[in-house]
């Protein structure tokens, strides 16, 4: 066995031979008993090396690494369901509506009646009348929208807190 044969055999075992080299090796394997023996030896060693088993670290190895990891990377970022800008706009609109309604109701109160006797009952009466002028369905719709919106914001914040921690 010469050095070139050694190299050729390992190339053949590794599957790195060109078609011509493979043919040459196969021909020699068929004809030369010494070459066949040399190949068998190397193939056996190759098989044994492939059967090597990995070493295992101690049981708590991965846990120890995990516990020593610093906080280097950003936490999970989950976009809020409703953007803070929209939430603020909604709340501002709601506040404007309440103020608008209150102003409208106050303006409906008769100032002369307010100064006479029984002023309180008159004022309450005027306010009730003013509120009755706003359609009931509109009031219900606004109340439902506001309640739904507030529940959604609350749920969104609670779920994000639970997932992200």
């Amino acid at each position, binding site marked *: 066995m010469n050095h070139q044969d*050694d*190299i050729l055999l*390992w190339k053949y075992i590794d599957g790195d031979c060109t078609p011509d080299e493979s043919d040459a090796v196969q021909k020699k394997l068929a004809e030369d008993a010494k070459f*066949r*023996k040399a190949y*068998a*030896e*190397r193939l*056996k*060693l*190759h098989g*044994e*090396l*492939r*059967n*090597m088993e*990995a*070493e*295992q*670290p*101690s049981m708590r*190895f*991965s846990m*120890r*690494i*995990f516990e*020593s*990891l*610093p*906080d*280097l*990377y*950003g*936490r*999970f*970022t989950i976009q809020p369901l409703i953007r803070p800008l929209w939430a603020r706009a909604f709340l501002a609109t709601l506040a404007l509506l309440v103020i608008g309604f209150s102003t409208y109701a106050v303006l409906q109160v008769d100032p002369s009646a307010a100064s006479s006797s029984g002023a309180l009952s008159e004022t309450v009466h005027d306010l009730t009348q003013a509120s009755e002028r706003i359609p009931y369905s509109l009031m219900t719709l606004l109340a439902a929208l506001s309640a739904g919106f507030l529940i959604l914001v609350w749920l969104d914040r609670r779920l994000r807190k639970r997932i992200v921690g």
Partner: protein
Amino acid sequence: MDEDVNLVRLVRTGHKPAFKQLVERYEDYVFTITFKVLKSREEAEEAAQDAFLKAYQNLEGFEEKSRFSTWLYTIAYRAAIDMARKKRLPANSIDDDASFLQLEDEVFATPVEQMQDEDLQAQLAVAIDKLKPDDAAMITLFYLQEMSVKEIAEIMNLTITNVKTRLHRLREALREILSRQLKQEIQDLL
């Protein structure tokens, strides 16, 4: 997409448990590399832990051009070699004729009768343990981790030709060392 890359991306967003998955997936292989280089379980575990921490800290440096395992083994190999240097373990390779001869002397110093009683796999483990740190790492990467010559060259910072030459010489050296046992084993095959 590569599952490792998915996990790496998850870690980058701050999801630490994804890194634990990566550690669990590669701990045996990383530990084997450091152990083959350092020959001591305690030091190998320290180097492997160091490698995983470095990998975590430099995760932004993983450019996803190569496999995650190649990138991780490069860090592990360097951590082990650094520790070996601190320990003053000889890190030169079988390419160096003097160290090559030293390797053979050491292995043949083991009583042949005792060697013959053990099976080939055990003898092989003994022979690999006697190798120089980077030779042991090379054979481990090639066979246990099934890395390509190109990947080994990348990990060990060598040329492809150099890796091929060294692998050839290394396997021939192991064959020489185990020739008696190998001849016995193949007699049934021929």
